[in-house]
């Protein structure tokens, strides 16, 4: 009956994309935030961004919503809106101070994730983006279990070029196979740095084993794109602004936009195929 209540609430969600990585700090939240902004640029689309990183919720800051609180109404919890068509939910909104730590074991985290899915009044959504913490544990099992893999279009997996990241990301890809979660593709973030002064490129995170490209070839997964390092990305995130709007000329922006488009195309195709089945 609980599962049914969840499914009922999520019936109005057209497309769901999970943003995953085995590795921490590769840019999942950054990507989730930009994906949300990118999709919401079409004002006819309703976008929802759900942050299930319970211990390290980065999304409120990145979306310029730090300090916002969640309001309850008769129909459930209200997401916090960045734009009219872009709503956000995160444990960050439930904490009263930036020093508050959520020191919870797995079962309690799972309980909150269930509440996020059951009690948030998202309304009709075209895209639900779920930002996750690194790893393959409670949060990941729970989100896949509660949403049900049939209702998830797929996962976007973020990595950086070096083997230290790839070795964790391969595990994440195996996790997806294990739970039968389709993989939309992999994004290689922090892919090279061009010095603003002399324009020479440095591989700060060197692809010693061939980077995401080789890994994707070996594992038969799509490489959605490579995004270079750009100091403006971190700055925009810290200021809660969309990097895509603040630095439209950056090579990183064109990379992100191409990747977002490919994800949109995948979702449209997925929807089309689903409709065919029905």
């Amino acid at each position, binding site marked *: 009956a609980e599962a049914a209540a969840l499914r009922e609430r999520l019936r109005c969600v057209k497309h769901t994309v999970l943003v995953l990585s085995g590795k921490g700090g590769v840019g999942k939240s950054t990507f989730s935030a930009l994906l949300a902004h990118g999709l919401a640029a079409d004002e006819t689309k309703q976008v929802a961004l759900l942050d299930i990183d319970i211990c390290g919720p980065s999304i409120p800051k990145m979306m310029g919503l730090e300090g916002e609180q969640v309001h309850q109404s008769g129909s459930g919890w209200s997401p916090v809106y960045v734009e009219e068509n872009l709503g956000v939910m995160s444990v960050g909104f439930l904490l009263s101070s930036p020093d508050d730590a959520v020191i919870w074991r797995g079962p309690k985290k799972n309980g909150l994730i269930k509440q996020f899915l059951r009690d948030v009044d998202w309304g009709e959504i075209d895209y639900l983006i779920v930002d996750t913490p690194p790893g393959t544990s409670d949060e990941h099992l729970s989100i896949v279990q509660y949403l049900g893999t049939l209702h998830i279009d797929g996962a976007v997996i973020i990595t950086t070029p070096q*083997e230290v990241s790839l070795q964790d990301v391969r595990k994440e890809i195996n996790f997806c196979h294990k739970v039968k979660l389709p993989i939309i593709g992999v994004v290689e973030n922090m892919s090279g740095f061009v010095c603003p002064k002399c324009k020479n490129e440095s591989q700060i995170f060197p692809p010693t084993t061939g980077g995401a490209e080789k890994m994707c070839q070996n594992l038969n997964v799509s490489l959605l794109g490579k995004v270079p390092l750009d*100091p403006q990305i971190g700055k925009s995130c810290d200021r809660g602004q969309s990097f895509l709007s603040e630095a439209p000329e950056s090579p990183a922006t064109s990379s992100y936009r191409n990747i977002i488009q490919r994800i949109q195309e995948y979702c449209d195709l997925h929807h089309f195929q689903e409709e065919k089945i029905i």
Partner: protein
Amino acid sequence: LLSFLPERSNLAGVRHILLVLSGKGGVGKSTISTELALSLRHSGKKVGILDVDLCGPSIPRMFKVQDNDVHQCDSGWVPVFVDQEKSISLMSIGFLLEKPDDAVVWRGPKKNALIKQFVADVAWGELDFLIVDTPPGTSDEHISTVEALRPYKPLGAILVTTPQAVSVGDVRRELTFCKKTGLRVLGIVENMSGFVCPHCSECTNIFSKGGGEELAKHAGVPFLGSVPLDPQLSQSLEEGRDFIQEFPKSSAYPALAHIAQQILDGASQRSS
């Protein structure tokens, strides 16, 4: 029963235990753990690293022993030695996986059980320092590790951050975790603090600058130093090389050596 007494346990021969924490992922906990171990070794110390990141164990590869197996002895598991001199020993779930790409898809209770075993059942022998590398967050692994280590009175925790506000925001929560669990904060390290272009020497603050230092000031904890982005360091970690030995002129070396010195000073103060 005797093994429950701290004096008789596998940690009885370990002089100082310290944890490397961060609320944030990908800031360089394993990197700092590795370089700290290498630096301490170069000061003549015997060091162990306990890697309690069960989902993303990075430590074995950083010492080029990712293909090693773990063996049992009478007192428990034998840690993996990275060299003939047995100056650095490691324990990680990475050594227990059948295939390196196998995902450890465990919920909390199973993770907690393994962590308890890791803390109690590794036959470390005599060590000057045991460094405990952790995954990001403030959850099962952290709660279980701190609880299991409490009887052995750890020296404290090093908190690693990168300069930008998004990282510092998570590390503030980790500071709260330390306060709530009674874990002393040895200091904060600001990693990935600036990049000096090897071609023209222009410094770019790719991940901003100063956030770690500000946080240390705000929280009243020692600031252990800023480590710059250093492609030679990244390369060394990829290849499992001894950066401290092989690249003393590289840009990250001074800061890493300074961090180790402060830990040594802090530990000898505590001993006396």
